[in-house]
Each structure stands twice: as structure tokens, then as C-alpha cells.
């Protein structure tokens, strides 16, 4: 039970933190349609974090609000990838694409999850996520080789984001036990599937990656699943919790 709570918390933290980063584009995105798109994506990710925290709550974890607003930043278990500042729009698009592709692979794998509530929840998340992936993949394909500047920006984003994205697949604490109970599929297996999905799409978009075939040749950015975070997370969590901490437990 403890292992499953840890796992659900890590997934929910990924969604919450990335959703917060996406929301930072509200009012600032380069064009109105993208402002609307990333505000929608942010809201979806927050919804998914709420669904996953609720599953953990049913197993004895604190409430979703307590998880989001009452924990210290070093208690989060999100990967480091979602913690980095939003960067330019190219980095935002690249991160969202790499993350959502990974989420699609994960949620697909949970269709055979032995824990029914998580299996059902993954189907709901998958249906909503389809819109994100379609949107960011289309942007990658268009911006990858549209103009010289768009190519340079997308290439810079791909170079920075790829090693970070591998951190999504850092092993969870207690993962072995969950794999044995057929609750989840091993992170290593998911990573291989993800690599074989994203590499062709990025290559086709004229982007170079630090890989040989489908084997990464870069140091993955690990630590988040064990609580070894970037300093960026401390600022993000302070921002996220600021209003709540003025009147803890207050109702609005």
C-alpha cells in the first residue's frame, strides 16, 4: 500500500508541477491560440493531479489540498524535468511533447493494471491527453524546420530537454514490488517504448538528439523521485502555496 501511495504521489506531483509551469503562459504566450491552448493544458494537468491525489487519499494519504499546499518542497517526488523554469516557447513546447508522450506510454501500460481504480483513471486521463499530444506534436513538426530561427530554437530546446526528460523514467521507490504485483510496468520498459516513439518524430522534424539508434548517449537528469530536487522547485512551491499559507485551511 505504501509503495502504491508513493507511486501515485510521484505521478500526481509531476502533473501538478508541470501544470503550474504551463499556467505561467496564461496572458504571455506568443499568440492568443497558444495562450488558450497552454491555459487549457495547465487546467487538464491540474485535473489529473487531483484525480491521482484522490486515488492516494482513498489509500490513506492526506487530502489533495494538503498534498499540494501543506507539504514542504523536499517532500515532493516529481521528476526534475517538470521543475525547470518555463524557458522560451520552444522549450515549453518541447517539454510538453516529451512529457505527454511519456504519459501516453505510461497510461497505455496501466490498461492492464491490477489495481482497478488506477486502471480506470488511466483511461480517463488518456482520453483527455490525446488533445495535448496532437497539439504539441503538430507544433514540433512545423517549427522543427520552418525557419532558421525556429529550427535553432527547437534544436536548442531538444538538446536541453532530452536528458532531462529521461528523468521521468527514474525508478520509483518501491517500484519492484509494484511490478511484481502487476500494478505497473517497469520504468525501464516504458522508457524504451517512449524512446522508440519520440525519436522518429523528432528526427523527422530535422532535430538531432544525443542518441545512437534508440540508445541515449547523455547523462539522464535523475534525483527527483528520491527528493533530490532542483532549486527551482523550492521557488515554484513557495509561489504555489503563498495564498494558502496566509490562511491555512481557510475556505473560499
Amino acid at each position, binding site marked *: 500500500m505504501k509503495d502504491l501511495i508513493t507511486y501515485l504521489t510521484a505521478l500526481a506531483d509531476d502533473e501538478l508541477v508541470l501544470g503550474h509551469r504551463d499556467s505561467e503562459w496564461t496572458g504571455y504566450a506568443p499568440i492568443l491560440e497558444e495562450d488558450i*491552448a497552454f491555459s487549457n*493544458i495547465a487546467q487538464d*494537468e491540474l485535473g489529473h493531479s*487531483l484525480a491521482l491525489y484522490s486515488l492516494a487519499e482513498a489509500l490513506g494519504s492526506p487530502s489533495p489540498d494538503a498534498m499540494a499546499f501543506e507539504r514542504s518542497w523536499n517532500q515532493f517526488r516529481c521528476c526534475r524535468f517538470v521543475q525547470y523554469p518555463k524557458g522560451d516557447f520552444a522549450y515549453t513546447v518541447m517539454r510538453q511533447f516529451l512529457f505527454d508522450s511519456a504519459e501516453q506510454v505510461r497510461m497505455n501500460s496501466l490498461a492492464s493494471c491490477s489495481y482497478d481504480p488506477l486502471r480506470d*483513471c488511466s483511461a480517463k486521463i488518456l482520453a483527455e491527453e490525446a*488533445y495535448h499530444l496532437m497539439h504539441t506534436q503538430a507544433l514540433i513538426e512545423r517549427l522543427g524546420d520552418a525557419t532558421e530561427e525556429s529550427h535553432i530554437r527547437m534544436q536548442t530546446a531538444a538538446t536541453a530537454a532530452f536528458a532531462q526528460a529521461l528523468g521521468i523514467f527514474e525508478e520509483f521507490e518501491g517500484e519492484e514490488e509494484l511490478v511484481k504485483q502487476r500494478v505497473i510496468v517497469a520504468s525501464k520498459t516504458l522508457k524504451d517504448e517512449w524512446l522508440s516513439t519520440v525519436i522518429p518524430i523528432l528526427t523527422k522534424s530535422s532535430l538531432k538528439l544525443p542518441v545512437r539508434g534508440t540508445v541515449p548517449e547523455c547523462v539522464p537528469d535523475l534525483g527527483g523521485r528520491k527528493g533530490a530536487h532542483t532549486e527551482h522547485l523550492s521557488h515554484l512551491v513557495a509561489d504555489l502555496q503563498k495564498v494558502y499559507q496566509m490562511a491555512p485551511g481557510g475556505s473560499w
Partner: protein
Amino acid sequence: MQGWGRMKALTQHTADEVWTALKQVMDPEIPVISLVDLNVIREVSVNGSDVSIRLVPTFSGCPALDMMRQNVVEKLRELGFENIDVHVDRTALWSTDELSDATREKLREFGIAPPVRKGTSLAVTLMLPVECPFCRSKETRLEGEFGATLCKQLFYCDGCRQSFERFKPL
């Protein structure tokens, strides 16, 4: 004491009556369709003055959910129930494919193009022609996969030169 017990018994409602009453609770953002039309009320069980409801969110991140829940509670209180339990089930699937033709027509009359029924591929579904809810022209195009709320997308009609929204097929 016995008298009070009997009076309570007289004001009790059946599950069917609760379903009928919930047809008057409208979606907070699309006030022409009820929560029953929207297929978010999944179970009603009544036991004397206790009632319990299973409520399924449309999109996981829909911010109207709390208002829906509150409006359901108010309606049930109006009916005289004392112990009201509205359980939010975040794991159940919700799909626009379940919306009835009558509900789709209400959406159209309200000015929102109804969702098409989803095929096997979302990309293909989104390429199907969409009829403008105002002038019925099919000369329309998708302006953005996203819209002003999670459940809508932005379209433009070349027939009447107006923007309109379409309920997102989910």
C-alpha cells in the same frame, strides 16, 4: 415523537423522483442542459431521509464541478433529504458519445456545435466536417483544438463569417 416520524415518512421521495428533480439542475456553464442530460449523475440511492449520489466529472480539471456538486446538494435539501452524500467519482469514464440526440440539439440551439461521435482516431474525428450552429454551413474550420473552457474548441464559419464553439469530442 411518533408524529414527527410519520410526517417525515410522508415527505419521502423515491429514487425516480430524485432523478426527475435532478433534471432541473442545469450545467453551470451551459444552462440549457441538465446534469442528467450531461450524464454526470450516475447513481441515485435513497434510504428514508438519506440519499446518496455518484457524480462523475466531465473533464478531470473541470472547475464547474464544485458548483455542480453544490447545486445537487441544494436540490436534494429542497426535496427534504437530511443526510446527503454526493460522492465524486474521478475514475469513471465520461464520453461525449453518450450524449443523446436531444441533448445535442439543445447544444446546437444554444449556439454550441455538438460533438461528433468519436471514431477510432481522434485526428480523423477532428477532420470531419462541422456544421455551423448559426447558419448550418459546413464551410467551417478548426481554429484551435482548445477553447474558452476545457470542453470546447474554437471554430470559424466561412458561411456567416462568425466564430463559434464546438463541444470537444471526448
